[in-house]
Each structure stands twice: as structure tokens, then as C-alpha cells.
């Protein structure tokens, strides 16, 4: 690296200053943490000195691991951001870490021999699979920065949902999976740092070799192409190196969230603009940052006796940055204009189809109520003699799922029509995450809040998020993908928060995890009735707004000319969507994606006007959720999976399918 490339831009704070500051702070904390070991240092070394051993084989390798992992993740993030020209790209936001993590969890549980042969290979395979999927999606959208990160986060959430199911099925393994998933840096030998060093070093050399061609890319793809540079080959190589960097880190220490996003962002804010100076300073900042975080975690661990994995902590502090970075996206990159014209429906509405839909729905409902398994696992229809005994247990779950699914579907339809965005839904916009945060707060304020209190807090949380989305959306002219990204980022934040709670062993975490999963298990006749009544009342209200919903998508001016009080109509509809989402989220959790799927199913069935679409969506949403609940009860019988997670396993791929289909 030449001296010229290291020169600081005039007036910048300066990346070196940040590196120095972070390193000094980390070193100070490290000194404090290691004081007992260091005190013994001066003594004549006895034949065996435990403090010295601890320093040499735990404290120092841990520092080295933090530095190497921080640098590797930051470098990975910088490569992604440079080559994709996307300031939000990072191993975390592109799902690389989550893919590796899921692959390793699967390996540990189902093929331990494979893990014995090569953890690295399993992790790399997982990262590569996740990345390949995301890029397959991105390629079709011209690598639009938004859609890449959006599909990356969705893939992360999907991997998270899948991992949760594995954890629920193997609850006694839970602790080790949690520790691992949250990225602990504890070390007892130089194995990990020394194993990582050559791998990361080799990839870093490759990254440096790509600095010049990437700088050419800076001047623009067309000109770079004219200079004889194969842009796609460069992109592929850089991405492969970035995936490798993150994959090796995950396989060694677990998921360390958001360092790969934060470090490059700080580097840019500090004024490092050239590719080569970013490739130099970002890893240094990442290394110092992770070291500093880890020393802080160690210092905290002395105060609170609970075990606190470093990766969970970086995720909690890093994820909000995603939201802060969102406004910068516009200044640097124009988002690809979206086609708003709805695609033609797959089938046309006819009375025959309508009858078919109702028939399918009736069969679903009957199946969920009467078709099940006997204790020895055989499939059976419920005999009339058993109705009295079994239906009081089954019916509340089925009807709560039905009501919740219908509410999510109607909320999704309202949001899609209001924002003119066919990917809007309570889950994707973060409204459900807001409701969950509301419930989490109620758990901390009251010891065991009643259902009514929980619904209240959930509704407030949902309204706040909708208000935030609305304000952000107004500023950006409701750029659809920006709003979506904000919502998904909120979901990631919530995930990180719960991750820390879970790893710390706080008993409330279990309540929240169960709640996140979205199980209908705790529903009783009373709460099922509440949910169904809420569903009927608010869905009827939604039906009453059909004129607004038909006309508002035409645009504010047109709607106003047609006599609609645009702002108050929008406000009321958003409020309605918030209440519907809150009620549903309480039953099926924040991650079901039914609110996304159902409006589409309804429209694909040819129901394009507001009233039929709302009704169709309610039926489809209710049906999907009933199906998910039934599947969750049956698939690992007698063990039960939460309906929300089961539908997320289907719903997240559906969201990706939509991303694919929307290629204009």
C-alpha cells in the first residue's frame, strides 16, 4: 500500500484517530481486566504460575481472536459494500453468517461426524448457499442495493426461525446452541487464533490484490468495462472472498453480528473514501472495535455474574445503526424504480372458483378440528364420542389461529393498498416487531400482565412503529423498499435483543421466545373468543373503508378530487392496521408472514377490488394460519411446533418468491 493512499482527506476526523482511540480504550480495559494476571508477572516465575498461564493461553488468545475476527468481518463488509456499491451490505445483513450458523446447527444435531471432519467446510457451505440464494435474487433485480439487503435479512430471519425450531425440538441442547449462535470469544488455547490467521491472511492478500480493479469500479461500471475489466468476474471474486472471511469467523467462534456493517460505516464517516484506504482502515477499525467490545463484555461479566456472549452484545448495539444508515442510502445510490403495475392474476374470478375457495377453506377447518393422530402416532379422524373431550382443547387453538390469520391478512391488504407496495405487511414493515417490543416492555413493567394489558401494550408498540414508518415514508416519498428495509431492520433489532436475554438466562426470555415462536398453545376458550370477536369487529370496520381503499391507491390528488379526506383517511387506516396486527401478533407472534401472503393469494385469485380482496385475504390468511397450526401440532407429534414459526418457514420463501417475480 502506498503512502499516498493512506493520506487523510482534509478536515476529516480521521480513521487513524478512531483506531487509536478505540485501541487505547480497549487497552485500558484490557489492563484493568488482566490486572490480577499482570500483578503476578513481576514475581520470579515459579515452576507453575496460574495467572501467567491464564494470561498467555486465555487472555492473549482471546484478544488475538477478537482482533482477527473483527478485522475479518470488517474486511468482509468493506468488500461487500464496495463491490455491490451498497452501504448496507455486510455478512450480517446479507445472511452469510446466519446461513453458516444454521448449517452448523444442522450438522451438530444430525451429522456430528460431518462436524468432526470439517467445521469450516460445513460453515462455508452454509454461507455459500445463503449467499448464492441472495445473489440469485439480486441478479434478477440488477443487484439493487435495497433488494439485496432485503432478501439477505429475510434469509437471516428464515434461518433464525429454522434454528428456533431445532432448539425447541432439542431443548436440552439449547444452552450450547445459544452460546454458539451468539458468538462467544472465550479461549483456552491459541488453536482458534492460529487456525484463523493463515485463512484470513490469505483472503486478506486476495482482497488487497483486488483493490486496484475495485478502484476502477468506483469510476463507474461502464467506464470500468471500457478499461477492459470484467466487472462480473471481479464481483464474483470479491464476493467469494467476503463470504470466505465471514464463514471462517462463524465456524470458529459463532455469529458476531453487525461488526461487518459498523466498521466500514465508521471508516467512511471518518473520511476514508478511496478503496485502498477503506480496505486498510476498515479492518483496523473493526479489529479495535471488537476488541473494545469484548473487553467491555469481560468487564461487565465481572459485575453481573451471568454469562454474556460478545456476539449478542455487538448485535444489540450494531443493529440500530442499520436504521441510522438508511437515509444515507439515497444520497449515494438511486434505488431502481419499481414497477407498480400489479401483475395479472393467475386465475380469473368466477363463481366456480369462489365455490372452490370456500370448499377448500371448509375442508381445512374440518381437517384441523377433526383430523389428528393417536398417542401411538397413527392418523385418525376424531370419533363423535370424543368430541366433548377433545374439541374444547383443539377448537380454541384452531379458531384463534383463524382469527389471527384473518386479522394479519386484512392488515396486510390495507398496508399494501395504502403504501401502493405489494410487499408491505405487518411482519415486513416491523409492525409485528413493534407489537412484540410492546409486550416485552409489559413483561418488564408488570410481573405477569393480563391478556388485556398485553394487547394494550402490543397495540401501542404497533402504533408507534406505524407512526415512525409513516414519518420516514413521508420524507422519502414512501419509497417502498426503504420502508420495508426499516421494518425488517426493526425485526433484526428485536431478534438481537431477545438473543441477549436468552443467553443471559433471564427467565422472562423464555416467555418472549415462546411468544416470538407464535404458539397457539396458551390460548383458551376465553382468549380465542376475544381474538375472534376482535377479528370480526375490526375486519367489518375494514370492509366499511372499502371506498377509501379503492380510491387512495390512485394517488392523493385524485382521491381528494373524489371527495376523500386523504390525511384523516390514511391515519385511520394505519391505526386500524396497527390494531389488527397487535391483536394477531399476540396469538401467532411477529414472524408469520401470513399478512404478506394472504393479500397476494387473494389477488392471484382475481379479487382486485378492495372489498373482494379483503374478504378473500381474510379467508386465505385464516386458512393458512389454521394449516400452520395444524402442521405444527402434527409434524413432530407428540411434540408441538409453534404456528408462527411453521408459517414463517413457508412465508419467508414466499417473500423471496415475490422479490423474484417483481422483476419489472
Amino acid at each position: 500500500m502506498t503512502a499516498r493512499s493512506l493520506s487523510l482527506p482534509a478536515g476529516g476526523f480521521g480513521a487513524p484517530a478512531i483506531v487509536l482511540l478505540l485501541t487505547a480504550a480497549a487497552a485500558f480495559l484490557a489492563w484493568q481486566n488482566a490486572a490480577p494476571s499482570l500483578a503476578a508477572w513481576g514475581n520470579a516465575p515459579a515452576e507453575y504460575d496460574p495467572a501467567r498461564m491464564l494470561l498467555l493461553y486465555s487472555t492473549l488468545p482471546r484478544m488475538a481472536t477478537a482482533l482477527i475476527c473483527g478485522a475479518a468481518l470488517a474486511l468482509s463488509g468493506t468488500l461487500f459494500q464496495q463491490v455491490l456499491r451498497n452501504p448496507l451490505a455486510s455478512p450480517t445483513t446479507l445472511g452469510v453468517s446466519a446461513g453458516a450458523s444454521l448449517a452448523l446447527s444442522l450438522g451438530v444435531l444430525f451429522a456430528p461426524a460431518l462436524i468432526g471432519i470439517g467445521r469450516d467446510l460445513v460453515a462455508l457451505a452454509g454461507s455459500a448457499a445463503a449467499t448464492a440464494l441472495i445473489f440469485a435474487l439480486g441478479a434478477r433485480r440488477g443487484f439493487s442495493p435495497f433488494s439485496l439487503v432485503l432478501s439477505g435479512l429475510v434469509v437471516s430471519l428464515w434461518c433464525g426461525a429454522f434454528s428456533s425450531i431445532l432448539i425447541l425440538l432439542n431443548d436440552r441442547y439449547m444452552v450450547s446452541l445459544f452460546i454458539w449462535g451468539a458468538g462467544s470469544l472465550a479461549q483456552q488455547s491459541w488453536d482458534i487464533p492460529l487456525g484463523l490467521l493463515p485463512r484470513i491472511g490469505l483472503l486478506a492478500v486476495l482482497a488487497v490484490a483486488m483493490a486496484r480493479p475495485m478502484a476502477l469500479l468506483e469510476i463507474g461500471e461502464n467506464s470500468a468495462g471500457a478499461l477492459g475489466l470484467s466487472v462480473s468476474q471481479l464481483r464474483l471474486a470479491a464476493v467469494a472472498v467476503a463470504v470466505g472471511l465471514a464463514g471462517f469467523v462463524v465456524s470458529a467462534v459463532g455469529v458476531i453480528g453487525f461488526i461487518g456493517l459498523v466498521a466500514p460505516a465508521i471508516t467512511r464517516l471518518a473520511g476514508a473514501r478511496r478503496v485502498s484506504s477503506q480496505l486498510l482502515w476498515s479492518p483496523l477499525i473493526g479489529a479495535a472495535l471488537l476488541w473494545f467490545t469484548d473487553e467491555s463484555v469481560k468487564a461487565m461479566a465481572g459485575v453481573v455474574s451471568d454469562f454474556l456472549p460478545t456476539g449478542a452484545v455487538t448485535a444489540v448495539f450494531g443493529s440500530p445503526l442499520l436504521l441510522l444508515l438508511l437515509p444515507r442510502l439515497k444520497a449515494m445510490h438511486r434505488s431502481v424504480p419499481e414497477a407498480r403495475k400489479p401483475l395479472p392474476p393467475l386465475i380469473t374470478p368466477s363463481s366456480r372458483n369462489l365455490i372452490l375457495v370456500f370448499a377448500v377453506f371448509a375442508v381445512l377447518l374440518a381437517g384441523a378440528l377433526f383430523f389428528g393422530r393417536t398417542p401411538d402416532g397413527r392418523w385418525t379422524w376424531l370419533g363423535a364420542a370424543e368430541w366433548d373431550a377433545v374439541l374444547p382443547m383443539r377448537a380454541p387453538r384452531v379458531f384463534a389461529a383463524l382469527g389471527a390469520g384473518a386479522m394479519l391478512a386484512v392488515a396486510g391488504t390495507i398496508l399494501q393498498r395504502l403504501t401502493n407496495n405489494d410487499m408491505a405487511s405487518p411482519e415486513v414493515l416491523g409492525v409485528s416487531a413493534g407489537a412484540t417490543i410492546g409486550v416485552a416492555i409489559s413483561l418488564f413493567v408488570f410481573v405477569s400482565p393480563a391478556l388485556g394489558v398485553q394487547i394494550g401494550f402490543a397495540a401501542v408498540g404497533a402504533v408507534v412503529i406505524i407512526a415512525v414508518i409513516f414519518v420516514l415514508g413521508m420524507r422519502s416519498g414512501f419509497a417502498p423498499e426503504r420502508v420495508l428495509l426499516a421494518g425488517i431492520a426493526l425485526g433484526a433489532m428485536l431478534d438481537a435483543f431477545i438473543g441477549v436475554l436468552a443467553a443471559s438466562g433471564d427467565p422472562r426470555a423464555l416467555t418472549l421466545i415462546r411468544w416470538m415462536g407464535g404458539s397457539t398453545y396458551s390460548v383458551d376458550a376465553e382468549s380465542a373468543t376475544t381474538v375472534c370477536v376482535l377479528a370480526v369487529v375490526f375486519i367489518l370496520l375494514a370492509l366499511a373503508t372499502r371506498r377509501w381503499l379503492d380510491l387512495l391507491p390512485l394517488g392523493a390528488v385524485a382521491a381528494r378530487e373524489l371527495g376523500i379526506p386523504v390525511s384523516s383517511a390514511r391515519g385511520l387506516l394505519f391505526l386500524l392496521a396497527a390494531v389488527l396486527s397487535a391483536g394477531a401478533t399476540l396469538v401467532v407472534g411477529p414472524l408469520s408472514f401470513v399478512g404478506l401472503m394472504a393479500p397476494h393469494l387473494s389477488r392471484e385469485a382475481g379479487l382486485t377490488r378492495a372489498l373482494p380482496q379483503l374478504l378473500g385475504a381474510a379467508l386465505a390468511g385464516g386458512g393458512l394460519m389454521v394449516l400452520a397450526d395444524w402442521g405444527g401440532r402434527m409434524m413432530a407429534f407428540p411434540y408441538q411446533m409453534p404456528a408462527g414459526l411453521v408459517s414463517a418457514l413457508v412465508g419467508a420463501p414466499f417473500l423471496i418468491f415475490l422479490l423474484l417475480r417483481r422483476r419489472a
Partner: protein
Amino acid sequence: MSSKTRFRSTGITRRGLLGGLAGGLLLPRMASAGVAPTGPVVALEYGIASTMLTLGAVPAAVASLDGWQKWVVEPAMPPEVVDLGSAWEVNLEILAGMRPELILTTPFLAFLRPKLEPIAPIVSIDVYGAGGGDALERAIDETVKLGDILGHQQQAAAFLGEAQALFEDCATRIRRLRPGPIAVVSFTDQRHARIHGRPGLYHSVMQRIGVENAWTVETNMWGFQTIGIEELGRLQADRTRLVVMEPLPPDVPAALERSTLWQSLPFVRQKQVSTMPAVLLFGMVEEARRFARLLTEHLERLA
């Protein structure tokens, strides 16, 4: 229900009666005089299930039965016992279908109460949790209560007598061995472990049979603490031994082999590390007995 035999209520103890009342929500006819159930009794937790087996009562169904062989091992579970699914979400349809006469649960599953109450009377067996106190003593109390509830007082008394005798015997043998302090750990992965201490069952048993626990830090409610393996460096007392509980993750031994820090730990250098078969951590007297027996035999073999 009319076929129920009345228990000859001579041997009901104060503790048993209070326990039964505290367990609450027994049907009045059961709480009043200790009617031994004749119908199915289900256990939602491993410790309760194993205590039932040792008292000569077979539970009709157990939660999370899938993991029994891995985490409890002894006593063997008869094959006809039904799996109720995970304890967090007990499969209510199977449970209700069995028409149980009594459901035995723990305070940790208190949130299930509203679901279980319509199905059958519930008794909560409270060994761990908010109450605090010595796990073994509480387990003994709860075993007496369980014997009363099941109408197996004699078996309970005999079993507890045997257990006490075993603890005495172990204590005598331990006195002869005079072992150094012992730390008991379970590895969760290559770099982390749970170490066992006060107020857990392992710790209680060690105290009872006169083995000094090397880990003196107070642990969580269940009696363990998650640590990075380097924290084992705190165990510097002379003659400390490390006992590793199975199951041991397959990749751990090789990783420890390569760790200089691990190799330098006094108990490793003095070859004072050994592995012991699994004993359910959240157990009751049967697990305490198994732990005492295995630990004593283990130490004798090594002596």
C-alpha cells in the same frame, strides 16, 4: 371413580399432609384423607418420574420421554409409558385422552396450570426454585410427600431408608479415601462448560457424603454456572480433581488435548481428571443416590 380403595390412613405425616395441601387443588376427596390413586398418574418432569419408578409406581406418561435414555439413564423406563411431548407444551390431547387421575408437575411449569386443572388434580413437587435451600433435603421431603400421595408410604420410607444408608456408606468409604476438593463439570462445547455448585443437587450430595466441592461460588437456581473453560484456572487448591459428566460432546477431548492452558491446569498435570456417567441434574433422591454411588465408586476406582 367409585372403585377407588380408601387408604388406611395411619401413616400420613404432617409434612405429607401439608405438602399435599400446599400442592393445592387436589380434589377434596384426595386432600382430605390421602386416597391412593388407582387410575393413571402422569409425571411432567424426569425427577418425579424416576422417583415414582423407585417407589414402585409406573407413571402412565412422561413429558419429553424422547431424551430419557440420554439424560436420565437409570431407572429404566418401561416401554409402555407414553410420551407427552415437550414439557413446555405438554400434548393436552394425549394427556386428557389418558384420563389421568393425578398430574405431578413442578413450579417451573406453573404456567401450565390453567390447562391442566380441567383435566385432573395437580400436585406440584418443589425441589428447585424460589424457595431455596438444600436440594437433597427438599428432594427427600418431596419424596415423602409423593409416597403419601401415591399411597406408597412404606415404599417411600424403605427407599429413603436405603438412600440414607447408602449415603452413610458412601460417607464412610469417602472418609477412608480422603479425596481432595472435587469440581464437577459438564462440557457444552469445546470452549464452554457448566460447573456445578450450591444450591444444586450434585453439590448437596457431595456435602452429604463428605466430598468438598472445589467450586465455591454460588451458582444459579438450578445449581450450575456457565463458564469459559479458562475459568477452571481458579481451581488451584492442592489435590483438586475434576470430574466430567457425560455426555461429552465428541469434539471436546481433542480440543482440550491441544490446549496448553488446559494441559497446564494442576488437576490435568496431576492426571486428576476423569469422566463419570450421566446423572440427571434436576433430579430427586434417586438421582442423588445414583450420583453418590457413582461418585464414590469412581473415586475408589481411582484411589
